[in-house]
């Protein structure tokens, strides 16, 4: 089975069907996408499929064939970080960092759909992502900062 991930074609085994999360992590060594709960409740496993955030722990890999998958490893372009990655750095929006990839990818999906979201729209878009260290205020700052930058650019 072929999967298009971060702009590259990957051929993966699918004799025993698996969720996309495990194909990314264990077959392709794309370990930036994390396991947190296995029931789509924590958001650590979020990836973009055709630009929309999905929970890869609940998404069969086979359902993504023919679609464009973006993981945290694919956000950086030509050595240049994505504005959200820059904003998370600028705001120090992390402690242990285990949720960070899922946060950034969920936010990227949100900004893809709505480049300058309201505070309420950010909350709605991020409600499914858990940070156990409690860095939510800084994550909100980072998303607002990245959105503001995008707004100016546009």
């Amino acid at each position, binding site marked *: 089975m072929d999967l298009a991930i971060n702009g590259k074609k990957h051929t993966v*085994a699918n*004799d*025993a*069907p*698996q969720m996309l999360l*495990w194909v990314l*992590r*264990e*077959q392709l*060594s*794309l*370990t*930036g*996408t*994390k*396991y*947190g*709960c*296995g*029931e789509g*409740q*924590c958001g*650590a496993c979020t990836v973009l499929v055709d630009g929309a955030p999905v929970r890869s722990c609940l998404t069969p890999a086979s359902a993504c064939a023919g679609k464009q998958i973006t*993981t*945290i*490893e694919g*956000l*950086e372009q030509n050595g240049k*970080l994505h504005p959200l*990655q820059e904003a*998370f*750095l600028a705001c*120090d929006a*992390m*402690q*242990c*960092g*285990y*949720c*960070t*990839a899922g946060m*950034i990818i969920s936010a990227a999906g949100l900004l893809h759909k709505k480049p300058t979201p309201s505070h309420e729209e*950010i*909350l709605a878009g*991020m*409600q499914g*992502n*858990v*940070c*156990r*260290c*409690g*860095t*939510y*205020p*800084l*994550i*909100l700052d980072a998303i607002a900062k990245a959105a503001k930058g995008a707004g100016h650019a546009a």
Partner: protein
Amino acid sequence: MLHEFEVERYELREGPAYDFTPDRRDFLKLAATGIFVFLALPLEAQESGRGRRSGNSAPSDLAAWLHIAENGRITVYSGKAELGQNIRTSLTQAVAEELRAPVSQIDIVLGDTALTPYDMGTFGSLTTPQMAPQLRRAAVAARMMLASLAADLWNTKPDEIQLFEGLAHSGAQQATYGELTKGRKLTQTVTADLKLTPASAWKIAGHDLSKLNARAIVTGKEQYVSDIHLPGMLYGRVVRPTAFRSTLTEVDTTGVQAVPGAISVRDKDFLGVVTTEHAHLDRAAAAVRAKWNTPAQISNAELFAHLKETVETPVAWKESKSEIKTTAAYTIPYIAHTPLEPRAAVASWENGKLTVFTGSQRPFGVRTELAQAFGIPEGDIRVIIAATGSAYGGKHTGECAVEAARLAKAAGKPVKLVWTREEEFIWAYFRPAALIEIQAGASKDGTITDWQFHNYNSGNAAIRSPYNIPGQVSEFHAAESPLRQGSYRALAATANHFARECHMDELALAAGMEPGAFRLKNATDPRLRAVIEAAAEKFRWGRPKTREGQGFGMMAGFDKGDYIACCVEVTVINGKIRVDRVVQSFECGAIVNPLQLKNLVSGSVVQGLGGALSEAIDFAGGKILNPRLSAYKVPRFRDLPEIEIVLLDRKDLPSAGAGETAIVGIAPAIGNAVFHATGKRLRSLPMKLS
């Protein structure tokens, strides 16, 4: 004594008895040249006071604490573990400060039993008050040697040498630290009399510094334990009993043979599977047919009566002669740490020697557990703490490391074991449940005259009231815990602060006093008064309510060298509690990194919201009934109040650890605010208006 660290029983209970073998690693053989700094003091003198089992003394350890290589790189070695609390950054700042070198010149190796000096564990908020000064002393020793080398080189006196920005200077001459070592192998020992740079003169410490590994985190490159992949590695899973305290009665593993690349492992009551492909793991585990015998066990409905019935020491109450008297009981349920990365380990055996990557707060303790489990010397085991998706006190033990090692031994290849979220909920340990009974009294002028405080089961951290109460009785009573329990961020300080600070409001009400004034009347410790005043001022405490359902509450407290006060505004509408605004003041001596401290204190408030309002483990018959994030509610974005943190920087005081105490404030402050809003006193966590 108020400021004495109190030993927490559950830090002592976790894991097997320590039996350390001095492990002499000869760094001089490993690395060729440079300056090595060793510790001359016995560890006992360095790490006194907490968590040590009687009868055992720690070994003097000959591992180097600091190395300056010929290329100028400075490497610091510490047995502590980075779990998100940001010690990688703060310890690097401390060393950079004393070595007069830029942070970018320093590497820090943490939590590797083969490379770092012995350490008891990363708990008790001890990294900042104990490990940082230790590394600072090592850096000062190195700095003195560098000055002496430079003096020799330029034929002058060491006190003529100036060190800054990673270079030694004398007049127009300068040399890098690496150049000064000149291909030699030099050793220096740390002595107790080395003078550290005072906080008032800090140039690197005491200032904001972003997390050092942040770029790796935002790009997904940071390798957490569960991300590690070794050549030839297989995947493991443990087949668990259906309930606690169960024994295996029957097992049939023949079905496993039908799963490609799968084997089953049985060792007494331990059952597991190993597969070559991750894709086959679920099927292999499901193919093991096991029957378990489970004894009857109590449910959470019977919990607090059970704790009272099984108490080890009788609780004695003294008759109160106070003019105003109050009594109340408070309950705190078991809660789960729920670190976002569940327990994980990657184990490999080579020629009878074992290497385990895992996420734990006690690398050397895990090594001991492995040595005992497999009957091999600790010297044949290396435990490496990889980046860990946090712990919050929940990863002191090494069960996952032991399990991974057992599976790897059976498979003859490296095995990765990552617990599922359900396993993490069920088979890790919980924050102890508590029943707390209080009898208090005051005179008519609001002076506290009686304070009797009894904690059943949860622990003695911060059990003593920090208010001025001569003759206070504050006792912890061990009881039989139906669930496995252990350390949790701030330990019992959260339960003890909840009960005490709620009851302070109850006593204030009975005495007819305003809660803020009542606290200040009974607080003589100037540091306690300072945090109360700072929080109250920022919050504008004392202003009248402006809308229906609004309520204000406060608390104050002390633990592990930290002072805290918290003011909260809530709105109660249709029986639902919404936290609108939190102002928390915090004082932990000289601040090492204001940016990261604020993040840590704010994060603690958010995490504390869960224990205050939503988190509780539901159990019956030896089973956890809500072992999923869909059933066990942790704080999310929409639960976030407006949070303002007020940091008090006391450069004249030693820095205390700050990873724990900031969590104790939010629950009692909410409880008091809900009372202010509704007149209903909530004495059980999580707080709900029914």
